[in-house]
């Protein structure tokens, strides 16, 4: 199945892109997207603990089960205000 992966801030800089349609296997959960990011840039390992995930504009835990067509965002520590 396919998801739309969205990256922001430091995650975007590390990956070198801000949006990509990604093929993921059935049963994938939100934090699985990190594995492919780590393959593209090993520095993502250091960020593992401080990244959060949002699916379809809603924060989710790492074990949130994805479905086809989801928009999955990797959310580094926010710094608005």
């Amino acid at each position: 199945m396919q998801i739309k992966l969205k990256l922001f801030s430091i995650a975007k800089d590390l990956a070198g892109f801000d949006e990509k349609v990604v093929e993921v296997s059935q049963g994938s959960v939100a934090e699985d997207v990190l594995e492919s990011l780590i393959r593209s840039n090993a520095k993502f390992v250091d960020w593992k603990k401080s990244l959060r995930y949002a699916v379809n504009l809603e924060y989710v835990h790492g074990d949130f089960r994805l479905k086809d067509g989801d928009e999955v965002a990797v959310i580094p520590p926010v710094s608005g205000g």
Partner: protein
Amino acid sequence: MVQLTKNRIETEEVLRSVIAPESGAVNVFVGTTRNHSNGRRVTSLEYEAYEPMAVKMMERVVREAQGRWDVSRISVVHRIGKVNIGESSVVIAVSSPHRDEAFQACRFLIDRLKQVVPIWKREFFEDGSSEWSLQSHEQETATQAG
């Protein structure tokens, strides 16, 4: 009024948007960009947002505040894109019949905004370099679903 804007935030306009004839107290929080960060001189800033989610989360924290305090109107406006030093990055305004509730709700709103609204600040330094400002997530109190 909940809004992301690339333009300067007009405080007067945000204030006007919350004035209610029955509510005499308005508390406003304004975040302005600073000229230093961890001892380094900052020359300008840029805010990036995950726009649809940022608006959704801003609307959510507004609803949370409305559920907790007797407030009349709330506006939250956050600037995105390039912002010069001394300009406002965020303006939050809360009107209430009771000043205590206006203060408390406004305080809550800026605290929650800094926890859950997906907006990121990039600071540009004198030497031309730039860095994302990265505090660690305040996970305990952040909105989590799923």
